């Protein structure tokens, strides 16, 4: 049976890519920072958690808990990794976008 297609929005794509880049250190704080620095996108904390929650619900992200840390008031970090479904969603959206871009590069450069 073919896995169900999952559509991800622009913010969700960016988050998935950042999680891939961060590797083992992907938890909310660095994800938020990288969104601001690399993607030049200011996302409120609330919106970030909602997006993470949604990605997990869609099966694109999986989370695991780290060790409790004193600087977090004894709370553990939640680390995220991209699941197979998440990888597939990213691949799909890349293919669609590249298809749409195809042949348009020169036009974009000259305009």
């Amino acid at each position: 049976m073919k896995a169900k297609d999952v559509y991800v929005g622009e913010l969700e794509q960016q988050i998935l890519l950042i999680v891939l880049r961060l590797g083992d250190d992907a938890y909310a704080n660095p994800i938020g920072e990288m969104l601001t620095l690399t993607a030049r996108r200011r996302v409120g904390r609330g919106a970030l958690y909602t997006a993470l929650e949604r990605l997990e619900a869609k099966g694109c992200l999986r989370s695991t808990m780290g060790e409790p840390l004193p600087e977090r008031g004894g709370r553990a970090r939640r680390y995220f990794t991209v699941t197979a479904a998440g990888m597939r969603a990213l691949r799909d959206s890349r293919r669609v976008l590249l298809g749409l871009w195809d042949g348009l590069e020169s036009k974009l450069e000259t305009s």
Partner: protein
Amino acid sequence: MTPRLGPEPPCVIERFLDRALAGAIYRDDIIGDLREAFLDLAVRRGETVARLWYAAHATRLTLRYGLRITLCARAAHYSPQARGGTAMDRVLMDVRYALRSLAKRRGMTVAVVVTLALGIGANAAVFGVVDAMLLHPFTMPDVDRIVMPMTTSPRWSGHRETVSPADFLDWRRQWAGGAVEHLAATEWWDANLVGRDEPERVLGFHVSPDFFAALDGRAALGRTFLAEEEVAANARRVVISDGLWRRRFGADPAIVGQPVLIDGLQSIVVGVMPPTFTFPQLAEIWAPLSFDEKATRNRTGHYLTVFGRLANGRTLDDARAQLKTIAQRLAADHPDTNAQLGAEVMTLSRGMADVGVPAVLGLWQAAGIFVLLIACANIANLLLARAAERDREIAIRLALGSSRGRIIRESLLESAILVAASIPLALAIASASLRLMHAMMPARIVRYIAGWDRLGLDAWTVGGTIACAAVAALIFGALPAMHMARGIVADALKSDGRTGGGPGRQRVRRALVVAEIALALPLLVAAMLSISTIRSYLISWQGYDPNNVLTLRAVLPESRYPDDDSRERFAQLAVEQLSVVAGVRQASVGNVIPAADSNSRRSIEIAGKPIADVSKWPRVDYRVISTQYFEVLRLPLLSGRTFTTADRKGAEPVAIVSESLARKYWPSGSPIGERLRIEDGPWMRVVGICGDVVHDWFDGRVATLYRPLPQAPADSLFFAVRTAGDPMAAVADARAALAHVDATQPLFDIMSMRQVLSDRTISLQYIAAVMAAFAGLALLLAVLGLYAVMTYLVTQRVREIGVRIALGATGRDVARLTLTQAARLTAVGLAIGLLLAIALGRGMEAGLLGIVSTDLRVTAALAIALGVTALAASYLPARRAASIDPMTALRTE
């Protein structure tokens, strides 16, 4: 426990966040992440910046998650088996949709919110007054347990009265251990305070020692009175109010035990009350009430106001039954004085309330509700028009499978949002109105109106406002919702795109306009009635000339003026001094002047017409006056002579009677030369008849008896001074002149006679001002409503009008068509309004003790004025209709 690592984020904010995140999947992560970022920022940018950053982020998260949880819970409650998206999503979507749809029609939204705020605000303001004056005029602890026992008699106006000293003492003795404890009597006391500053007259009360216990008032400094201080020998003690302590004694903490000079005698201050205790009537000083030998036998002088507290486990009915038995026993024991007297026990709020107050407040609240109904009709009309505009959109949504319930929910949600938005504005309007009402009432009158000093928005008023808003939302939200619920898909889709629906909906809209006009007319009539009553009182015949007269009051303390001679000397010297003040033509003095807020009445007996029972002697207004009194007030002497210097003490007692007294008791002949007497007074010979004066607008002309001051000197004095120009210009010199006579004697109520008259009508002025405000608001809303509906109807008929013009109708024909339609609506509204106005006028006549009377001519004139205004408002839409270009009209359709 986690060890502390450097700076900590604000713990209160963190706690709030923790609570808001209850149930959130990432609860611990969010708090941990925020803490970690806070610590990082504190190291890089300092702790203050980090704390501010934390506060901002945590607050935003708290609001976001808090709102989500609340909405989730509510949505889950409404539809546990929600299909297609969570219930919260749907509620949020509905809210967002409603907000967007309101924002799209900003003009209409603002109009609705402002109209609604005016309607609700007006009601909230009236409710604020009702709350302060009727529902919660007093703020003492357990106020419902405080009672006022009082004497009743069928002969007295209002059938209740203050209590005589002998009756009070008997009640206290016979009632001991009964349903009421701490029975205490109080008597008005104008205390003259002399000390560091200029002499001052302070409102005080002589009270029984149990007075403070009855009201649960405890001294903030020192103590209240002891039982033994009721004995005259120990009675030179005073308790002062917080206000007096601060104003007069600089909040001296060592004041307790200090002597102060009051009424010319030393009294010891034994206590200072807390700022909240100023009972009764914003009193500032209290002294023990003691009874001399004569007072303990006095059953005819009713001057004590009695308070008490219901004993534990006892009810008001117990108290009533017990006092009734005691009163019956006293009536049997003292048939000459008490035969006709009964007794009644009331709660404090009922007992202190003015007889006319509930009627006036009822009238205001009715007017407020009328205005709110008009506002609701206006809003319903606007929303109906809008609902009609959306007919097609709704029909398409229904056809595509949207549920009818959802569309109704959206409509109701829009109404709810409009109401929610108008509540803060309504409260602001109410608060401003109440502040204005409070500021406009002169301080000297505030003390007579229980609760007025507490006028303002409190929890009750805010609660009442919200309840009123909810009712309003139901009224105006129901119509458009019903309209949408009935929407028939096929009809709307088939329609040619014109909005407005069929004749049924237009009928509803017209009915609303008729209702607005019908409700506005009675308000206009009520306002006009109140205004014309005041005008007629202020400018009508008074019996004397109130222009260019200055009045001053003084109450002579018994210690400095213990006997008739000293009082007479003061009065005489004072009049002499006042007469030579620059700008003064003549000066006089009396125990009461016309229109003053106090009165003096006595029972009289006419020679040759004896009545055995003293309590059945006729009552007349009683005046003690100096020789020039009639000239100063320009009160005409009709026959006989006025008082002269020969009418002194020891000479034959004489009296002058007013015209109405003469006519009432000597209907067939002249009273001059006849004799009469007041209870326990000498027989007096009538030497003259003077004109009547209006003392009180309730009573009109009242039989009045005048005596010369030297034969019955009074201790409460009103000086009346006729001046050449503005009476208030002579105030400083008049004060200085009286200070020459006695520098320690305070003067008060210094005002012109016109001001005295105006104060007398203050309650009517208030009624008129509030009614005028309501009427103005009602008129504005009704006219705007008619204008909106006529404009709307014209837009609905553009095509028809185009056809008419194309077929040869002139602009004038078309304008006439529109105006006729408006005239028909107005006429129906006015017809219903007239009936309501007459009913309201009758209600006012009955409720306000006959001080206003319905005038059919005024009512008719107002109806015509309202009709003309309404037609003027329809003129613009009519002109627009007349100028429609038939080609354009037909093309656009």
